[in-house]
């Protein structure tokens, strides 16, 4: 089987997210990044497929150089090769500009059989990058996939929609986003690979390596724009009651009556 590509994203550690007041995008450079938790599940899927089909796994990430440790972590989990897509020109990308760079890099890695992504990031949380990348590559996409296997050289995917689960058959290549609840158990990285990766560095591709239209990159290539960021203020507006549980429960019953939720 041809190779599997996994896309991972470095996201700010929850609680440390800052907005750049000038560009109104998230400040990423100065932050401590962690692997997007949902991408861990995509890497697990890659690892399992690799064991079953003996395929090559390439992990790629677009981001600042501080995602390198995350690429190395991903390598130790399930990959054979790491590629960092990094260039100042990529900064401030929305999902379209991100998908554009990812699609170009994936194309450069052709032929491939499968692209795996997380369902959504925990910072932007749009869930748009997987289908958008597939669309730019002109190949099918499935989201919320819980299981994936090959049958007669075709991918069979179990995917979740709002009404239930569908079993879908599709010829490779294909982009899928993996459901965060796909696995009951996620395997730890192998010790051997943790040691091995210490002496490895990812390949770095910049804008000039990818045959890109500069108009479509970064902040200026992003049609969606954040025009205002405001902090939510919470004002006290109600009654705060302290007391023993008995009194408080009685108060609740009173309100329930007043609101017509109970009769007595």
């Amino acid at each position, binding site marked *: 089987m041809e190779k599997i590509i996994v896309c991972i994203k470095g996201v700010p550690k929850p609680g440390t997210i800052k907005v750049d007041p000038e560009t*109104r995008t998230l400040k990423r450079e100065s932050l401590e990044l962690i692997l997007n938790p949902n991408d861990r599940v995509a890497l697990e899927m890659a690892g399992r497929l690799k064991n079953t089909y003996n395929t090559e796994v390439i992990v790629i990430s677009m981001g600042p150089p501080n995602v390198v440790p995350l690429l190395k972590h991903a390598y130790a989990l399930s990959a054979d090769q790491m590629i960092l897509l990094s260039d100042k020109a990529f900064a401030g990308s929305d999902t379209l500009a991100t998908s554009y760079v990812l699609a170009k890099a994936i194309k450069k890695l052709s032929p491939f059989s499968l692209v795996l992504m997380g369902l959504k990031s925990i910072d932007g949380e749009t869930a748009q990058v997987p289908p958008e990348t597939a669309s730019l590559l002109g190949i099918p996409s499935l989201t919320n996939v819980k299981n994936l296997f090959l049958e007669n050289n075709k991918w069979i995917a179990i995917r979740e929609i709002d009404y239930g689960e569908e079993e879908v058959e599709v010829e490779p290549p294909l982009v899928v986003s993996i459901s965060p609840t796909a696995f009951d158990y996620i395997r730890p990285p192998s010790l051997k690979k943790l040691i091995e990766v210490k002496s490895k560095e990812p390949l770095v591709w910049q804008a000039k390596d990818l045959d890109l239209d500069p108009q479509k990159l970064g902040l200026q290539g992003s049609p*969606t724009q954040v025009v205002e960021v405001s902090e939510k203020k919470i004002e006290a*507006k109600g009654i705060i009651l302290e007391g023993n549980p008995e009194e408080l*429960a009685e108060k609740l019953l009173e309100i329930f009556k007043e609101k017509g939720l109970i009769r007595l």
Partner: protein
Amino acid sequence: MLEKVELENLSKGNIVAYGEIYRGELNTSSLEILSPLKEIGKTLNKKLVLVCLIDSLKDIKNLEEIRKSLADEVWFVINEELKDFREDLYAEVLVKIIESSQPYGFFFPATKIGMSLAPRIAGALNIGLCAHVNSLEVKDNQIVMARPTYGENIIAKLISKSTPVMATISLGAFSIKYGIEEPLMKEIVFPKDFVWKSKLKIRNFTPFKKKPTKLSTAKVIVAGGRGLKNKENFQKLFELAEILGAEVGATRPVCYEGWVEEERMIGISGVIVRPKVYIGFGISGALQHTVGMENSEYIIAINTDKEAPLVKMANLALIGDAEKILDLLLKKLSK
């Protein structure tokens, strides 16, 4: 019989909403999103169109709902290849409609299908797409969309520089309203040379066994968070809900803990609710949760911490132990 319109003769410049029909049934979230879009349409003097992709008109179970909707027009694309939802083909059909009718805006409910479909269209047309929008307004002749963002209590307002303006709209963010006049129903006739082909084949469908929760339309909600301490206590909320005619909601951590199914999560990653009464047991009130319930008419918070954000935003806050108060309530109510 529907009036037939050739693809190239569709009227231009409208505001279009995606009418999600799955196995003959319209997802009512498509009707929800018509409410804000109607207002936008009025302000900008644009027609509101609902577009539905189906394999046959006669099998649609809730056509009545469509007839009562706020849309000015409903456009159907009818072809047997549209029987199953297949994102590549569906996206291609919608791209054709966008190319010929050049809408001003195109909006999707943020269902799993909507979120799978909209980005494919954005990619194909090279245009922007805003995600999980929960409010829309017109400012200087432009649609400004708001969505909450993460980690901190931040609301971002976005615009899209490309046309059509595209967004997915959070489920439950708006309530369904009905129109006065029945919309004009049309069938779009595709050119003969359009290829109705998908690379996807749906081999099997297993519907969810459990009925989807009625959270987003519930009038009363009893919700629980980590302050309830364990699954056993959380389960007692179902008894209370039964007595009050309420639905049970939850915060994300307790869903992840497995105290209750994820379908009951309220907030940015879950459902947006607007009940008449919301009661939160042991919920801190993080922004990611409160954006999903802040439009409740009457909010009650039960928390040991006087400083918890939900306590501050509540109409009535009770400072005390959630478990004890819940137990006492159940005791008193079962008498």
